[in-house]
């Protein structure tokens, strides 16, 4: 188990290293950091002075190594637009995004599990067809449009929830639905196919022959094995939600990391953009790593590969 974890960890670090190179290259090659510091209407002489003062005139590789060193020691940079350290700004915003992503996953799971299990128990029944139709619709609905429709229906017409903002749990309900619903279809499909496969296996037949109660067989013996691949998928979906939070947080005006990303792009805050891409990649890699470790723990066959 330790070797397995170490191997996974090492791989994650190499991937993160590549991500850092791409991020740095992307932001530096496409945008001039001197303009970001001095402002759009600075003269060429002023820009040159900024380049010398901030060290932007040195080779990119040198700047990259220096940046990577700072990032590795926990210093994500300084936002010249907000005049504050990037990390401080991010820390303020994390709770909103973390709550939103957690609730969204809860929405996805609480739709996907019952529908997936019921569909697997009754293949080709009306409930199976219904959940399949819901999945097809869910995957085609753009989340910004769905978010706006939720606002129109449940915040404006019925006034059950606030139109926007991030104060109190009530204001998280609509955004969590808007972000979570699109993750439900893939999870549901995986549970359905996994359950159908497991339900046909010998040990389930044995359990049935021994006269165990149906709900006991389904929930305790079958689901436990069918849920293994779902763990990885849920980690991937949670990662997608961090990326998708840009849209949903903007639609609902919530001050989380996603909206911060959009705002940083609007005001060409290069250091903040770089840091955000890095942090979101890192969280995604950690999630995948945790899912891998959990899977390796749950299923010893995986560790040996």
């Amino acid at each position, binding site marked *: 188990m330790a070797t397995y974890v170490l191997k996974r960890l090492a791989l994650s670090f190499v991937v993160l290293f590549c991500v850092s190179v791409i991020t740095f290259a992307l932001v530096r090659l496409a945008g001039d950091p001197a303009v970001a510091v001095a402002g759009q209407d600075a003269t060429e002489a002023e820009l040159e002075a900024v380049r010398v003062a901030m060290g932007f005139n040195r080779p990119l590789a040198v700047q990259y190594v220096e940046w990577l060193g700072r990032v590795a020691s926990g210093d994500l940079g300084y936002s010249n637009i907000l005049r504050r350290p990037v990390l401080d700004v991010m820390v303020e915003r994390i709770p909103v995004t973390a709550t939103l992503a957690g609730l969204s996953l809860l929405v996805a799971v609480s739709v996907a599990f019952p529908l997936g299990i019921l569909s697997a128990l009754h293949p080709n029944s009306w409930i199976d067809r219904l959940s399949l139709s819901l999945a*097809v619709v869910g995957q085609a*609905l753009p989340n910004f449009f769905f978010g706006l429709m939720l606002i129109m229906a449940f915040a404006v017409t019925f006034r059950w929830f606030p139109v926007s903002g991030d104060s109190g749990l009530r204001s998280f309900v609509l955004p969590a639905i808007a972000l979570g619903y699109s993750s439900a279809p893939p999870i549901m499909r995986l549970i359905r196919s996994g359950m159908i496969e497991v339900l046909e296996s010998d040990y389930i037949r044995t359990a049935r022959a021994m006269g165990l109660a149906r709900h006991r067989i389904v929930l305790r013996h079958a689901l436990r094995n069918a849920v293994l691949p779902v763990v990885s998928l849920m980690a991937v979906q949670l990662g997608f939600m961090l990326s998708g939070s840009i849209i949903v947080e903007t639609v609902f005006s919530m001050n989380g990391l996603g909206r911060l990303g*959009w705002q940083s792009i609007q005001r060409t805050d290069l250091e903040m953009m770089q840091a955000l891409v890095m942090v979101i990649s890192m969280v995604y890699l950690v999630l995948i790593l945790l899912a891998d470790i959990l899977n390796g723990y749950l299923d010893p066959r995986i560790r040996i590969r």
Partner: protein
Amino acid sequence: MSSMPAPHAEAPGAVPRIGAGRILRRRALAHPGLMIGMGVIVAIAIAAVLAPFIAPHDPYAQDLGARLIPPVWHDGGSWTNPLGTDPFGRDYLSRLIYGARISLIIGFGAMAVALAIGTTMGVLAGYFGGWPDLAVTFVVNVRLALPTMLVALVVVALVGGSLTVIIWTLGLLMWDRFAVVMRTATLQIRNQEFVSAARAAGCSTARLLLTELLPNVTGPLIVVATLEVAQAILLEAALSFLGLGVQPPVPSWGLMISEGKSHMFFRPWIIAIPGTVLFILVLSINLLGDGIRDVTSPEGRS
């Protein structure tokens, strides 16, 4: 991801070739989802191609005296502007028709870029195995670790929101599924007898890949391609909605929703119309993709 079907493998000689196309056509015609999806896509594509002839007005012509006219089914609507006008007084139906061009061009363009990159990587990884396989798997991991939406926004913001930039950005961010599926499909086929036979007959590797392997993985390839077109259309709409995609005054459905957003409380139709059309197009593409998967999979699900 793991639900991809086995590739449409028909070994020459083993299966009677006569009538294979007919069976496929009969299955396709009997599949309601596939036919509905295809019908809607063809209709939208025709509208997009013939836009100059069927659009009732110039999609760019502003008329500030005729701002925010409601659609014909509301009070105050008229057949002059069947779907009303936007906040600049431009005809909504005309912008919608021209917007279909943007969605389709970006959807298919980004898919083509992704297909070229992903298929090359997937086939090479699956066919050669060993270090090419490890390398491709690693690059796929790096790609998956990059947050698509954020990176796309950064690139478009820094480079500029032209059609070409958006197509290339999305294409470069979306090839991973092609690579994964093609790798698996190639792995399943490369050890089959007809591939060994071609190798024994002295085929070069390039010829073997192009004439023996690729024709046998077209089923899953088309399925992934439709999914990616739908995904690219959704991403473009989201980028344009956030103001960092197609730039005004070009009519994009995402941009229309964004421009109508501040008027939606009193005129819900202003976002409902482009949103619904976007939803219908993406739904149709997904239905078509699911249908092709059902029809081409060996079991031939009814």
